[in-house]
């Protein structure tokens, strides 16, 4: 095909693109991924029995805030990485600071605690399943994020996939808080963080081949 003919075709009826199209699409994905995770909690795991009471406590919201901020960092990084010339440095730095601050506080409490309590603070009652549940609940959101990214222009597939995983993992972990009754910062700082980073690692592996265009 001649280039002029191609240009004629492309420019025949260009659809208008709304400002903020990238943010709108990722916000849609966050909503869809969050709903999918919510359905999984309600239909599969069940909400925690003391949910109404827990919601009056500080720790419930600290957990939600931490994982939501990890999701926000992922969103912010994606909003940059979806563009061919986007610089994700500030977003990644933001995510690293959130993570370091929460994990640091968690381990600070843990070290300050009575040694007899340390094991139960760290392991809680559900450390074996936490990672797997967060990973499973994040899969629909991760898949949706990668599909949306395939229509965008990421030029760093592995890093973009990692951000996609952190984004989907942050959303899923926040919803998972409706099921999980653990209430120590060191538990959340360890197992939730590993869950979100695990989704990020999966995203990086998938992104390496799914995000070529």
């Amino acid at each position, binding site marked *: *095909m001649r*280039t*002029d003919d*191609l*240009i*004629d075709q*492309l*420019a*025949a*009826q*260009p*659809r*208008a*693109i709304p*400002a903020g*199209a*990238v943010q709108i*699409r990722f916000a849609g994905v966050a909503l869809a991924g969050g709903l999918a995770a919510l359905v999984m909690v309600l239909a599969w795991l069940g909400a925690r029995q003391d949910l109404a009471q827990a919601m009056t406590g500080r720790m419930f919201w600290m957990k939600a805030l931490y994982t939501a901020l990890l999701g926000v960092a992922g969103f912010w990084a994606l909003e940059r990485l*979806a*563009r*061919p*010339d*986007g610089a994700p440095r500030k977003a990644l730095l933001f995510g690293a600071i959130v993570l370091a601050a929460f994990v640091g506080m968690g381990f600070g409490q843990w070290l300050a605690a009575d040694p007899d309590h340390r094991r139960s603070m760290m392991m809680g009652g559900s450390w074996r399943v936490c990672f797997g549940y967060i990973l499973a609940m994040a899969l629909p959101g991760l898949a949706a994020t990668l599909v949306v990214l395939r*229509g*965008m*222009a990421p*030029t760093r597939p592995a890093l973009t996939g990692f951000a996609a995983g952190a984004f989907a993992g942050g959303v899923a972990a926040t919803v998972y808080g409706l099921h999980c009754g653990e209430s120590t910062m060191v538990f959340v700082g360890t197992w939730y963080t590993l869950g979100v980073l695990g989704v990020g690692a999966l995203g990086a592996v998938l992104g390496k081949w799914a995000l*070529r*265009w």
Partner: protein
Amino acid sequence: MTDTEAALKALMLLGLDGDAPAYRLLLSQLGGRLRVYFERRMRDAPGDVEDLVQETLMAVHTRRATYDRAQPFTPWAFALARYKLIDHWRRRKVRATLPIDDYVEVLAAYTPEPGSAMDLDRALETLPERQRNLVRDVKIEGLSLAQAGDRAGVSQGAAKVALHRALKSLGERMRGRADG
């Protein structure tokens, strides 16, 4: 360069709002710059230049939602071009690195007047018919001198001389227009 950037960005913003003529102008202006960009980097495979120009224009079109209206347009467009070029090399197993911001030289090297294609057409019209056909056949359609000579009913040597004269007087006419 900044003028070029401002003009391209203005066209892109109009195109994003659905303005077809502005968008078409953007793509053709960008196409010329992309051609220069790829030609300089693909001297080993000049036959693939046009493919890459087209692939990049398609990427510009299908992925235009990723252009941030608050940012300059040229770095975005040439980041797409750079990705396409690296991908092209990767598929051919060539390892190479490519600086991110070296499209600047293309903007400096290729700065056509907005109406240059029209000027060329007008200058061509002033040539005698036989010379005009020769220029079209050889320089625009890409025929060989022998083929163009066959069309005009003259020998290859005569076609070469006539083409040379035609280009010379064409150059004088366009220069005269620019000076005047």
